[in-house]
């Protein structure tokens, strides 16, 4: 590499460190997009939002055997203001919905979100009065990781997909800087009728109210 002080090499200017290129091989040219995305993708700081058994698998992912630190996620932050990627692991009840929304809004741009597990992504088996049917109705989600709970390999695969997504982002894209605002009347990112349509009863759960008069 050329970016070494040339004081060790014989220099016409004596005793002054010269950081100039020694030869043409010392120059690296690149796109700024690539460089910034490369840096962002490989130093993501996750903010775990663990509410259920998925959080246990998340801990296994972060622990020594699967070692999330290999992907630049060395620093596990429990403060949303110093985090890049929100990993929501577990079911989210309606009571926690304003909390999750607040945490997401506190995170600085650019930021990403991973929905880990069936419950966070769709409500899962908890098709009840108390559980949010997919956290993408509260915050925008980049990667959904299926599983109940997902194995650490699955979460790592989701993180690698997120890294791939980050590598394709463009600095000129305004979505990286502008906060997405919810609809002021309904406080939702998705139109209300679309949410109702998506959470229609399906499968066996149409029989759930058989005890009602």
């Amino acid at each position, binding site marked *: 590499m050329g970016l070494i002080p040339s004081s060790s090499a014989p220099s016409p200017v004596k005793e002054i460190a010269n950081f100039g290129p020694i030869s043409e091989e010392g120059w690296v040219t690149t796109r700024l997009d690539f460089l910034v995305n490369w840096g962002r993708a490989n130093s993501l700081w996750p903010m775990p939002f663990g509410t259920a058994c998925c959080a246990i698998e998340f801990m296994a992912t972060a622990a020594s055997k699967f070692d999330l630190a290999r992907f630049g996620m060395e620093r596990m932050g429990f403060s949303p203001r110093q985090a890049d990627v929100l990993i929501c692991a577990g079911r989210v009840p309606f009571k926690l919905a304003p909390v999750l929304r607040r945490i997401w809004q506190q995170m600085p741009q650019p930021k990403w979100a991973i929905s880990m597990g069936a419950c966070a992504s769709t409500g899962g088996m908890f098709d009840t009065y*108390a559980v949010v049917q997919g956290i993408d109705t509260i915050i925008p989600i980049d990667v959904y990781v299926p599983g109940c709970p997902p194995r650490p390999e699955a979460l790592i695969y989701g993180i690698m997909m997120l890294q791939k997504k980050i590598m394709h982002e463009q600095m000129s894209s305004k979505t990286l800087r502008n906060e997405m605002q919810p609809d002021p009347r309904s406080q939702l990112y998705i139109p209300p009728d679309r949410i109702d349509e998506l959470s229609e009863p399906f499968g066996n759960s149409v029989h759930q109210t058989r005890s009602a008069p």
Partner: protein
Amino acid sequence: MSAPFTIYQPAGEQPSTPKNLPHKGGAANPSAAAIAAQFPGAVLRSHVMWGETTVFVEQSKLHDVVQWLHDDAAQCYEYLSDVTAVEYRDAAQPMEVVWHLRSIKHRRFLRLKVQLAKTEPLEVPSVWDIYKGADWLERETFDMFGIKFAGHPDLRRILLWESFQEGHPLRKDFPLRGRLSRAQQLTNALSANPEARYSMEELSIADAFEELPLDMRARLTGDSRTGE
């Protein structure tokens, strides 16, 4: 070598084990007969199942019965382990409110029940003034069943959020998904401000110190760190 561990055994009583207990019948808790003798007409009926005694009490007498069970030296039920309610699928059957009492001194367990007709307002007396631990238990029963506890100092929802508008989820007529549409539920939930409910004064133990009981104040200010 320390002394071998011995189980305290009251004279003349054999410890009851879960093994050879009959499904129905068997030795009843002597407190059941004692209640019937102390409060004539208060006990509707009682039965024993799996070694546990259940006493159905008249609603108006419940508070007196619990007070007596707590205070009387021969009963000495120091511990209220649960307050809950039951609703049966058969709509004609009344609802039941259940109190689980435990006497650590006499090693007894007693279940009290009050039947509530659904046609009348669901209200029972609170036992908060006897057992302070009834506070959250009664709030949970109110939250889930909508049963009011007369005399409770702060009867509001505990598990569900304050702005939950859809009723009481453990009632049989409550649909599992709730009554509102998903989008409406989400909008209601997001409009709640979880920080607005509690002031910093409420959360600060320094400000709440004056309201603590005397013995707890003495323990917090003293050197003792053993707890209760």
